[in-house]
């Protein structure tokens, strides 16, 4: 990888650029590429423009010489939201992996959730994708999520991410189901002020997810770091068994027991033993990773 690729920002890059720089050079073969013009059958009705790939790039490539399937959402097209075709492409690649059994899947999440204009088809697709992830994992396929884009990983995307074998997240990444504005609208600004970005990031952002155990790896915002994380996670993810699910259930129950009474993430971090919990948000990536690793080696046997 060239120097500029090493420092290339994941956050700034388009889905296509992420795929191109993440994988081994020139190894990517796209399925259902833009020239096939498989666009949304619904957007025209709303007088909205389409994108040739319906906002997701799927295909096959090599990561450090080994085959992988890749699906990358374009967070700037309709907020990376799931529509009928978009969802079907991800379902298809997961089912291909399930049938092949030997090739892992990398999902580059960048989504606000379901596309409202295609709500029924979108929600259905999300359900199919969750089932497809589980079926693939049951067949022995590793499904790793990479999260660090403009739209975060919200709504159905958050649910799908929760079904993955492992996740790597950067500081810009956020993982949740309900978004900040939805929480504020439903619960009031005193409960959650969506314009208080520091609060949003403490609650849903990459650093908190790492410390809470919702993501296995925290990475700096570079393609190189996401690539290294993907390789490390693919090498270390445990098999998907009933024991894995039991361990995950236990992890979640334990988490709720320990932190269910906390009002803010800073309390959780302090309770975890983080020295000077308030300094976490401003902390540079390498210092944060060192602290997170010291506190809890990520649990490979859960999920």
């Amino acid at each position, binding site marked *: 990888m060239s120097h*500029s690729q090493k420092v290339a*920002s994941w*956050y*700034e890059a388009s889905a296509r650029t992420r795929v191109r720089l993440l994988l081994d050079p020139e190894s990517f073969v796209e399925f259902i590429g833009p020239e096939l013009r498989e666009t949304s059958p619904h957007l025209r009705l709303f007088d909205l423009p389409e994108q040739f790939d319906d906002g997701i790039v799927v295909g096959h490539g090599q990561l450090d010489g080994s085959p992988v399937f890749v699906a990358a959402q374009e967070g700037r097209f309709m907020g990376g939201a799931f529509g009928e075709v978009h969802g079907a492409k991800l379902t298809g690649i997961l089912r291909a992996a399930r049938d092949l059994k030997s090739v892992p899947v990398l999902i580059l999440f960048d989504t606000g959730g379901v596309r409202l204009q295609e709500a029924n088809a979108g929600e259905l697709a999300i359900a199919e994708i969750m089932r497809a992830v589980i079926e693939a994992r049951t067949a022995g396929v590793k499904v790793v999520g990479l999260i660090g884009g403009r739209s975060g990983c919200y709504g159905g995307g958050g649910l799908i991410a929760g079904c993955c074998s492992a996740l790597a997240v950067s*500081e*810009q990444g956020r993982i949740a189901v309900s978004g900040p504005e939805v929480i504020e609208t439903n619960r009031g600004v005193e409960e959650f002020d969506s*314009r*208080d*970005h*520091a609060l949003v*990031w403490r609650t849903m*952002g990459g*650093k908190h997810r790492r410390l809470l155990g919702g993501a296995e790896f925290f990475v700096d915002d570079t393609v190189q770091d996401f690539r290294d994380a993907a390789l490390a996670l693919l090498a270390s993810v445990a098999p998907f068994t009933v024991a894995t699910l039991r361990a995950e259930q236990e992890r979640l129950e334990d988490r709720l027991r320990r932190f269910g009474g906390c009002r803010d993430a800073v309390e959780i971090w302090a309770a975890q033993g983080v020295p000077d919990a308030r300094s976490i*948000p*401003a902390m*540079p990536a390498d210092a944060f990773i060192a602290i997170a690793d010291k506190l809890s080696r990520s649990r490979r046997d859960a999920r």
Partner: protein
Amino acid sequence: MTTRQHARATRDTRTAAGIPLAKGKIVEARDATRLLEAVIRPGDRVCLEGDNQKQADLLSSALLAVDSRKISGLHMVQSGIVLPEHLDLFDRGIAKKLDFAYSGPQSTRIASMLFGGKIELGAVHTYLELFARYFIDLTPNVALIAAETADRDGNLYTGPNTEDTPTVVEATAFKDGIVIAQVNEIVDKVPRVDIPGDRVQFVVAAGRPFFVEPLFTRDPASITEPQILTAMLAIKGIYEPYGVQRLNHGIGFNTAAIELLLPTYGERLGLKGKVASRFALNPHPTLIPAIESGWVEQIHSFGSEVGMEDYIRARSDVFFTGPDGSLRSNRAFCQVAGLYACDMFIGSTLQIDLQGNSSTVTTSRIAGFGGAPNMGADARGRRHPSAPWLQAGREADPDGSALLRRGRKLVVQIGETFGDANAPLFVEKLDALALAEKLNLALAPVMIYGDDVTHIVTEEGVANLLLCRDADEREQAIRGVAGYTDVGRARDARTIQRLRERGVIRRPEDLGIDPLDADRGMLAARSIKDLVHWSGGLYAPPSQFRNW
């Protein structure tokens, strides 16, 4: 022999009327309205501080709550119409007449109130003009100002956001007016004395900070490739050939892009130390990388910027600070600095016509002038020479006699050919003219006049109006950088070609710039977080700019 000391007597009477509400000079916040009713008379000229950034918001609310049978018909003289309360005063009949300079957030409402006859307009001014008139014919009877802290003698600390206050108080206090200050809190000793207590009659303890908004923070994440291209064109096509050391940047994404390209593109061109070392400028966070990279010697500021306080303290070699270490800003002096001690102004606008006149006025918004016309004008009273000034003078008048040929200030308008909502930057006729007709104004509200503009920079290239020999060449030079707007598409191709050969129009390729190279990787900082890193953690951005 009649006495000519009525004003002193009146001031003393008014002060006496307020004394029962005060302990010494200190008045409780809940008594503010009654204080104003005691001290203000109908028809008074009142300056309600109304700066570009800070607002005396408690005193605004207090004034709005006065009994309009007791206080009415006030003549408001203030820089900024910023808070809704500033216009509510007119709705309630408490205020009748207005002289101001800037109305950004209220620009739509003020337009409709002017059309509706709710406000009698004196005039729209630049900051410096309004300050000047405070001393000649718009002297306030009462000044309602904002400061951070006060001691019991009324000495005030105005802190980083000192802005207009010294000027307002100078005019009011020394012409027998009443000065009332709202402060965040009363302290035993102020960190430094910005306003001496003998100029202040009353101090209202607000118990909370005065209103102030971050107006000069531009998120690098929002800077687009065309803005980077225009910034490269400005640096290569103007900063470099004229060797501009002393300058003012108007606020906007185009100038933010220039600031972020100095440590990268500017460095690549070998320009450090040769350009952009001394600024009349608010503390733009986007200038942090250039400061940290050693580009900037000195900055004087009109006001402050929320979040920059600690950074400024730590960089007192660059900024103006008091003995207490915090920033001391001063709008009046910074405006003068921009006018007489800077060789270039560069800023953006909403509309430019075929003579080069520019305006930010549309038929539904009146934003006022602020300080741009002071910055963006040739200062004909200037006498000291500098290299860029003399070079521009030579270009404007190549045949003139050198010893009698004044220089010219570089006045640069920069922007993309299509602006927000794809509205064209270039128009045949400014909306400002239609507004002047509608409101029966003596003059159309032009921000910068065509005969002051020296260069226009768009993504299409740089037009040097100094080199134009007549009005027709000037018009074609403007059309030549107007891109695909109607104005641009009506260009005369042959004239444009000739102008390009003479260097009047220079396209990116004439300056060795490939538009495809204008990418965000060139910015020294691409996010607010990057700026925080550059500042070593000293810059503390307000919440709305964070994404961590």
